[in-house]
């Protein structure tokens, strides 16, 4: 997936001279995960290193976007995106509206996110809810290499600010990637496996986990559909409702803590839009309501195969 992201950035830098890539260690080093490897060699000053100052990184991006550039800044890790929240919440999310459309805010903020790599807590956070709750931002997370390429190119082309959450635990996933434009428009979800008995809803690294669950369920004669939401904002109500109306049951899976997480949002939308089609209450399988634990306890925090299967059993039993 790292190479797919690198290829997407390379294409954006080549195709649009307004594209800029910057952040901590993205230039000379090529990024701590190698996502920006070789870009400075090819594009020179349009790929540059910044000081360790996240608020400054986003502030620079906002100014450049107002001047007509298409900045693609990187925040090195999820937990380090918090020092930049002031600029994100106060200016990045609001400038298009504040200027009544006079300024685009075509910033794509790349944030390596989520857990699963035995890192400390500020390398393992799931910050999607903070951004999804901030009106004015679009929020997206790819589940694998092909998705990463398609979604990053789409995000960079967006006139709105996009928070692009890269699941670190999927960085080393491999698959053939077609460097064609995304077949799906912005805001569209994707059914990655069709099934009849229940729908698993996920994004980022949990899509892969849900596919493992679906394969395990198949052994027991249970047919699960897996829906990759992709875009958390805007959320694809249509595909969500269509899938769950068909299966009658839904389990939402995310790494972020449970309370007020995006699982609650998905569940609420299903209540509003598909209540009469539901055969069981929507279940959530999430991280616990605790700060991200030490690496040795990480496997207890991230939704496991068994925890998801138990939730599936609960919706089947209704």
């Amino acid at each position, binding site marked *: 997936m790292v190479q797919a992201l690198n290829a997407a950035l390379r294409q954006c830098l080549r195709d649009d001279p307004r594209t800029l890539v910057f952040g901590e260690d993205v230039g000379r080093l090529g990024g701590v995960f190698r996502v920006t490897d070789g870009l400075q060699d090819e594009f020179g000053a349009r790929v540059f290193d910044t000081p360790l100052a996240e608020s400054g990184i986003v502030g620079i991006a906002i100014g450049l976007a107002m001047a007509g550039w298409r900045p693609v800044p990187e925040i090195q890790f999820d937990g380090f995106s918090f020092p930049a929240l002031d600029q994100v919440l106060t200016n990045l999310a609001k400038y298009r509206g504040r200027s009544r459309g006079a300024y685009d805010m075509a910033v794509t903020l790349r944030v390596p996110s989520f857990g699963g790599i035995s890192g400390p807590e500020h390398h393992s956070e799931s910050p999607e809810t903070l951004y999804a709750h901030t009106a004015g931002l679009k929020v997206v997370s790819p589940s694998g290499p092909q998705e990463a390429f398609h979604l990053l190119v789409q995000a960079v082309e967006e006139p709105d600010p996009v928070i692009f959450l890269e699941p670190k635990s999927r960085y080393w996933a491999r698959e053939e990637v077609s460097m064609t434009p995304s077949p799906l428009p912005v805001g569209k979800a994707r059914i990655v496996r069709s099934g009849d008995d229940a729908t698993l809803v996920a994004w980022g690294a949990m899509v892969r986990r849900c596919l493992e669950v679906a394969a395990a369920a198949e052994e027991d004669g*249970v047919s699960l559909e897996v829906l990759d939401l992709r875009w958390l904002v805007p959320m694809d109500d249509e595909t969500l409702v269509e899938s769950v109306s068909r299966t009658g049951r839904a389990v939402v899976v995310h790494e972020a803590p449970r309370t007020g997480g995006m699982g609650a949002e998905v569940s609420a939308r299903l209540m509003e839009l598909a209540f009469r089609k539901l055969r069981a209450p929507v279940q959530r399988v999430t991280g616990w309501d605790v700060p991200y634990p030490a690496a040795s306890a990480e496997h207890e925090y991230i939704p496991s*195969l068994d925890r998801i299967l138990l939730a599936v059993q609960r919706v*089947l039993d209704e």
Partner: protein
Amino acid sequence: MAEFVFRLPDLAEGLEDAEVVEWRVAEGDQVELNQLLGEVQTSKATVEIPSPRTGRVVRVHAQPGELVRVGEPLVTFEVDDEPGVVGRVPHDRGARRRVRLRRPGQA
């Protein structure tokens, strides 16, 4: 005596495989716990592999330059059959489910 298969552990970063760079032990060697077995290279770093057990190296499963996927056998040891293994057992990526599903409508 018992056989102990040391599988390539998840090198703590969600990596899927690693390439063997070199071995510092050969088949037939007696090794101590934590003795350096060799080096593997991931897409991020070169990592030294300490021995998870004291024992005799029976088989080295990959030669330098070969790619080993996480969970695949790296080295097979002959070890003393004693309870209380020291060190962490590398987690196996397969077979992690315990829960079995009942189908809708099944008792």
